[in-house]
C-alpha cells in the first residue's frame, strides 16, 4: 500500500473535485460546487490538475474505426445544413434592415430592462406576416418573432454575446408544460444582430423562449430566459 492509499475517507475542501471532473456529482451538487469553486483557489487547482486526467480518459478506450455509414450520415447532415445556412444568409441581409427598424422601436421598450409583456407590432399585411415584439432581458436588446403561416423566424438586434462557453438556444412552450428544446442554436454578430429560423410545429405554442446554454444545447433550460415572445 502506498501513502496515497491510506486515506480513503474524504471530507471537506477538495473532496468533490474528482467526482466533479468525472461527471459523478448530481446536478444540484454541481451547482453548489461551482459556486464553491468561484471562491476557493485550493479546489480550483485540484480541479485543474484532475481535469487533465479526466480529459485523457477517452484515450483509454480501445480505438475502433468509424463506420462508413456514420461518416456519410454526419457529412450529409452538415452539407444539408450548410446549404440551408447559405440560403438563410441571403435572406438574413434583407432581415438586418428589418432588425434595425425593430431595434429602433424595441430599444425604447427595453429601456425598462427586465422582462415585460409582449406587444404585437403588426398583424396581417400584404405579405401575411405577423411580427411579435418579444421581451428582452438585456437593456439595449430587442427581438421580434416573424410569423408567416406555420413558419417563424426570430430576429434579434443589440443582443449581448452569450457568456463564454454558451450559445443561445430557442425553446417552444405550450400552455402549462415545460419548454421543449429546438435545434435552433445561434450566436450574434459583433453588433448583436442575429436571425434564426424557429423549427418545429408552432401549433399550440404560447411562448418562444431563448436561454443561454452550454455548447451543443441542452434538453432542459439551465438558465432563465433572456428573450420571451408571447404568441398567444
Amino acid at each position: 500500500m502506498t501513502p496515497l492509499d491510506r486515506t480513503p475517507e474524504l471530507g471537506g475542501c477538495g473532496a468533490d473535485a474528482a467526482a466533479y471532473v468525472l461527471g459523478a456529482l448530481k446536478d444540484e451538487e454541481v451547482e453548489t460546487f461551482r459556486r464553491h469553486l468561484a471562491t476557493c483557489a485550493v479546489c480550483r487547482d485540484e480541479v485543474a490538475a484532475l481535469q487533465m486526467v479526466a480529459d485523457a480518459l477517452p484515450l483509454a478506450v480501445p480505438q475502433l474505426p468509424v463506420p462508413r455509414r456514420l461518416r456519410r450520415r454526419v457529412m450529409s447532415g452538415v452539407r444539408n445544413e450548410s446549404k440551408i445556412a447559405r440560403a438563410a444568409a441571403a435572406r438574413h441581409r434583407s432581415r438586418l434592415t428589418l432588425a434595425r427598424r425593430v431595434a429602433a422601436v424595441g430599444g425604447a421598450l427595453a429601456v425598462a430592462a427586465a422582462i415585460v409583456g409582449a406587444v404585437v407590432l403588426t398583424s396581417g399585411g400584404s405579405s401575411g406576416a405577423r411580427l411579435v415584439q418579444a421581451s428582452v432581458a438585456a437593456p439595449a436588446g430587442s427581438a421580434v418573432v416573424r410569423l408567416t403561416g406555420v413558419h417563424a423566424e426570430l430576429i434579434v438586434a443589440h443582443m449581448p454575446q452569450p457568456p463564454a462557453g454558451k450559445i443561445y438556444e430557442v425553446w417552444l412552450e405550450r400552455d402549462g408544460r415545460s419548454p421543449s428544446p429546438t435545434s435552433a442554436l445561434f450566436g450574434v454578430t459583433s453588433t448583436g444582430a442575429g436571425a434564426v429560423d424557429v423549427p418545429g410545429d408552432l401549433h399550440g405554442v404560447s411562448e418562444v423562449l431563448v436561454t443561454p446554454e452550454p455548447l451543443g444545447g441542452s434538453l432542459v433550460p439551465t438558465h432563465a430566459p433572456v428573450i420571451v415572445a408571447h404568441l398567444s
Partner: protein
Amino acid sequence: MQLVSDGEARAFEIVFDRHGAASFSLAYRVCGRRAMAEDVVQEAFLSLWRSGARYDYTRGSVRSWVLTIVHNRAIDALRRGAVRDSHDVAEEGAAERVAASECTESEVVRRDEARNVRSALGELPPEQRQVIELAYFGGFTHTQIAQTLELPVGTVKGRMRLGLTKMRLALGDSPEVAI
C-alpha cells in the same frame, strides 16, 4: 477551426476525420451498442457544426473539446433510460483496427499516449479503477456507485480522488498534450 467557424463543410470533414474514430470509440465504450453510439456521434458532430464558432482555443485542444461533447451526449443518452444491455464491448480485443496504411506520425504519437493512459488506468488498484470507470464510462453518480458497491459516499469519492491523482503522477503533468 476557423474555417469551421466560417461554415466550411469541407473543413468540418477534416475535423470529423481527425476525431471521428476517437469519438465513436468513446461513445461505443459508454453506450455499449453500435447503433446508439452512432446516433450519439452524429448528434454531437452536428451540434459541433452548429456551434463551431463558439470553440474557444484558449480553453483546450479541439480534440478535448470534441470528446467532451461526445462524452456528455453519450452519458445523456445512457441516462435517458437506455436499457443497459450487457456491453458487447467484447470487441475490445479486436480494437486498434485502424489499418496500418492510415497510421500517420500523429497517429503513432496518439497510440503511444493511449497506451500510457491505458497503462496508468490499468495499474490502479481495482477498487480505484472501478469507481473511475463506473463514473466516467458508466455515467453513474457517486451516490449510485456507493449504493451499488455498498460503500460510504466518502469512500467512493476518496477512491476517485486517489485514482485520478495516481494517474496524474503516472502520466506527468500534461497527459493532454498529444490529445
